[in-house]
């Protein structure tokens, strides 16, 4: 095999989450009453556009979760040897950016280093200049003159590529939808162009086009230049920002995956059984809730660190260690965030329990657990979904803050928090090194913004009580 696959624990959980999501979508498609609110979500242009953006982030995170050991060139006794390092599919896709490491800072799209250096010429002459970069714009002979034209050319190529990709996607989409709707292609096209469809096809196709063009042109330009410059040790900032997507998405998504079972089971039990069960569960979540979140997280992370150090042998490589820490962080964040949902579900179960059909079921002698599973849980799922979507953006933001206090993800993990933490010191430079901070800002802002917008739409669509209010 040209590689040796590695599945880290977070990878496995992330795949599990993906599987759950896929099953959920398939399930919804067959049940009209569940399908309707989601249809409403994607019929709103905000919802559909946000979903496109979020799915793009998700796809990047997924690509970055497929890890393997690459094969080494050397062979011993006809057996392949594999490298120790772990890379992901995304790393392979972004290979030029991953491996083209400069010496130190360079500004975005620059062909020169950010700081002056001594250059010794062959004739012994010594000059103090901004040296050319080893990779960024290295193909130019005189960047001062050629760079703009070259950039323009690359950009055009990128846009063309992106539009081509977009056309392929849209074409496939149209063909598929035509096939499934059973209408003639002409008719289908007509609806789309005249924007008569129930769905915001115009907005979606523009978004997809933008995403495709952005990805394609950043890949094309990024292979020759450093799109967002390089950091202190010369690594490509754009690459780091993209790699951080996995951390952000994972923290937002896995945390909820971890906390959901606990919150659902405890919440419904408390509301359904009442009595001492309710008392105990209420006691647990009030107690946990009283401890200030940051401090609980800090304390747990400190202890996890101690634990991992005590059992250092189980976490041999730095990657595994960082992965474990990420997982633990998700667990800890889960522990601090399940209480809110649990409280909501308890109240909802409380209400549902008094409903006539449940009373009827009880009277018919249906077992309690069956009632819980069949009649109560499906009826508060909208609350669960709303909470999950709302929490997501908060968790992504929390990661950055935790990293600043050194209780976030491992310093060896790529994350926006770590980028900010590192880059804030660079703001003291003159001229200011702004690109690391900006890159982290942009990528994080886009994710959180669309997650928030999506959350709004989901809430409007799913919550029967509200229309535009809480």
């Amino acid at each position: 095999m040209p590689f040796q696959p590695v599945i880290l624990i977070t990878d496995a959980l992330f795949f599990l989450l993906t599987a759950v999501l896929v099953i959920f979508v398939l399930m919804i498609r067959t049940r009209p009453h569940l399908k309707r609110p989601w249809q409403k979500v994607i019929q709103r242009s905000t919802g559909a556009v946000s979903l496109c953006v979020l799915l793009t982030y998700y796809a990047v995170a997924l690509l970055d979760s497929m890890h393997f050991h690459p094969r080494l060139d050397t062979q011993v006794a006809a057996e392949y040897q594999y490298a120790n390092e772990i890379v992901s599919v995304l790393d392979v896709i972004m290979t030029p950016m991953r491996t083209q490491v400069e010496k130190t800072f360079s500004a975005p799209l620059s062909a020169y280093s950010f700081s002056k250096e001594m250059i010794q010429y062959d004739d012994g002459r010594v000059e103090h200049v901004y040296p050319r970069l080893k990779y960024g714009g290295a193909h130019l002979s005189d960047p001062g003159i050629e760079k703009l034209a070259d950039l323009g050319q690359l950009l055009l190529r990128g846009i063309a590529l992106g539009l081509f990709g977009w056309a392929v996607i849209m074409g496939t989409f149209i063909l598929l939808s035509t096939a499934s709707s059973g209408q003639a292609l002409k008719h289908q096209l007509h609806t789309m162009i005249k924007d008569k469809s129930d769905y915001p096809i115009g907005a979606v196709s523009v978004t997809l086009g933008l995403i495709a063009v952005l990805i394609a042109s950043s890949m094309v330009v990024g292979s020759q230049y450093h799109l967002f410059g390089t950091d202190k040790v010369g690594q490509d900032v754009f690459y780091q920002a993209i790699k951080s997507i996995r951390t952000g998405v994972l923290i937002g998504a896995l945390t909820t995956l971890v906390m959901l079972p606990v919150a659902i089971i405890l919440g419904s039990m408390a509301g359904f059984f009442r009595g001492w069960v309710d008392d105990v569960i209420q006691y647990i979540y009030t107690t946990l809730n009283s401890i200030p979140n940051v401090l609980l997280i800090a304390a747990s992370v400190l202890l996890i660190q101690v634990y991992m150090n005590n059992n250092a042998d189980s976490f041999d490589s730095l990657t595994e260690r960082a992965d474990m820490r990420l997982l633990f962080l998700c667990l800890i964040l889960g522990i601090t965030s399940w209480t809110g949902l649990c409280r909501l579900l308890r109240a909802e179960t409380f209400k549902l329990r008094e409903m006539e059909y449940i009373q009827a079921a009880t009277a018919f002698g249906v077992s309690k657990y069956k009632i819980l599973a069949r009649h109560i849980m499906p009826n508060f799922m909208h609350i669960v979904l709303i909470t999950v979507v709302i929490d997501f953006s908060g968790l992504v933001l929390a990661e950055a803050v935790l990293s600043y206090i050194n209780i976030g993800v491992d310093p060896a993990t790529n994350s926006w928090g770590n980028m900010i933490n590192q880059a804030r010191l660079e703001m003291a430079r003159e001229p200011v090194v702004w690109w690391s901070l900006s890159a982290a800002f942009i990528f994080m802002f886009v994710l959180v913004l669309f997650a928030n917008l999506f959350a709004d739409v989901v809430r409007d669509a799913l919550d029967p009580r509200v229309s535009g209010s809480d």
Partner: protein
Amino acid sequence: MAVRTLINLIFLALLLLPGCKTAQWNNPYRAQDQQLDVIYTSFQERPKELDPVKSYNAAEYEFIAQIYEPPLQYHFLKRPYELIPLAAQQLPTRTYYDQQGEILADDVDPALVAYTEYVVTIQDDIRYQPHQALAKDQHDKYVYHDLSMDDLESVHVLSDLPVQGTRQLTAHDYVYQIKRLAHPNLHSPLAGLLANYIVGFADYREQVLTAMEQTPGQWLDLTDIAMEGVLALDELRYSIRVQGVYPQFIYWLSMPFFAPIPWEADKFYSQAGMKERNLSFDWYPIGTGPYMLTENNPNLRMVLEKNPNFHGERYPSEGEAEDLAAGLLQDAGQAMPFVDKVVFSLEKESIPYWNKFMQGYYDTSGISSDSFDQSVELNSQGQFALTDEMRSKGISLSSAVATSLYYLGFNMRDPVVGGLDERAQLLRRAISIAVDYDEFISIFRNGRGVPAQGPIPPGIFGYEAGEAGHNPYIYEWRNNQLQRRSLEHAKALMTQAGYAQGIDQETGKPLILYFDTVSRGADTKALLNWMVKQFAKIDIQLVIRGTDGNRFFDKLNQGTFQIYQLGWNADYPDPENFFFLLYGPNSILVSKGQNYSNYENPEFDRLFDQMKNIENSPLRLEIIKKMNDIVRADAPWVFAFNPKSYSLSHSWYKNVKPNLMANNTMKYKRVDAQQRAQARQQWNSPIVWPLYALLLLLLLLIVPAVRGFYQRERATGL
């Protein structure tokens, strides 16, 4: 109508604001202090202890070295570092004794010496700073030595007890402090080390424990328990007996560990209720030095003020040749200290720190890696010099190679990288070449360091510059400069060692090495990546195992590691302080010593024993050279680099010369407050137009809003 008036008023205020040019808006200090003779500097972390018995780091020495006076100090200007008397009248006398207590000649064979006695004579005009512990009433009784809980009821800070007193410094106070070093409850970091040297030190701990058990809960007067080797001969002289010969002992006498503590203060602070009120040595030091701590708010600021009882000291009148030209001798013979007050402000984040320095609110600043490019660039001679921006502000640069060494150590007991056999030796040398610390210095330290050539850093006896001092296994001396040996050479060494292309020829497996490190901080990731890349250059796969500090030292303690990275700061300027890190009997696995690599070479150990006991002389240099050769050939460490520290100071800050050994340098400093006030004025005029712009924007938004408001009001009203 009211709204409009308000807006008018705000407008008026904003218009007037630029008019008041008298003070800078961003001045973090009180405006009235502008013209005073004050040094403004900062501290990064609150000092953990200020008790000289426990204090053992630069951040704490920053304060207590100005307050306490040990018998000796380092000369401010002279290099190499030279010990001179501080509280003592002259350097201590040294006498050798044999087993029978007979005096031996100075040049006797060290093996015959049973113990060495040092006698210190202190000056007779030194008095303590005014302090409550020394306050006496008219009957010559201590006012505050018998305080009840009720007396302390309303006391929260020391100044709540109004009466202060002082007394003359005596030799007993020095003896008292040495006894405190041995006290089991005080946890002096030096206790473990001194127990090996000072006669009776180890026993003293037991004596104190016994005494404490006999009178539990009571203050134990250490003057009642004698330490065998430490005696006050009279009011001004005391003696210390050291086991065998330990010439480096005298250097310890310049550290605050050996500063005087009056028994009165110990009694005073040990009263019930004192500790709960933070009345302790950690909060209110009591010293004889040029400064005393008058404000101790470690959350905000610490203030040192002139000690009114200071015995006086004069600025040195001789120094190195270039000191005169540099203006460092202008104050020669003047009475110190020059500055009335030193204000240390807490500054945890480096950005505000640097910006405040640039705005003139700190007098001096170190240069972090991030502010480096801004302030320093290479000049045409290839040396670091200030940028034009810095020079135009009148900032000056001083640099010094620290007497410290960073190294990458191998575990010499490891089956793969350890051992003195040729195979492991070649492997270690190959790694030493491959791990390119020249590159490390330029990437991670912006050139602030020099690649180390051996265990001895510059500035310490035994260090040789240039060709004579280069490490021939790693470097070549070509065209009058150091040239790292090529990777091909390293690969050849690998092949020779039987690891061609990173494959162990004996087992056929790829060579995987483990690197243990303390992973912390934002830079870690890049650093570790770099390290992996270095090993990959000679086809070694490096696995990084990161842990925290404690676990890391656990591993060192148990010897369960392969490669690690550490640094060592000189305690005193003597080669012994570095070579002992490689001395066999000092191995961590043998004696819990500081030889973490467990390096043990009999020849090296023999030379060490010899070198340790002789004065700096050509003979000693000869031995050191031999030792260097052995270590370089064995390569138990990759000698990484000696850090170079740069610091910047404003033009009004005088008498700046980096001194890596002395910490009590505040007294030499002088400031020109007038010049500072002008510079601050000039650099800090606020930029206000964005505020106006913002205001305008708000107005522009308000107008349509108000219009909309009325429209809507009318619409709904209908």
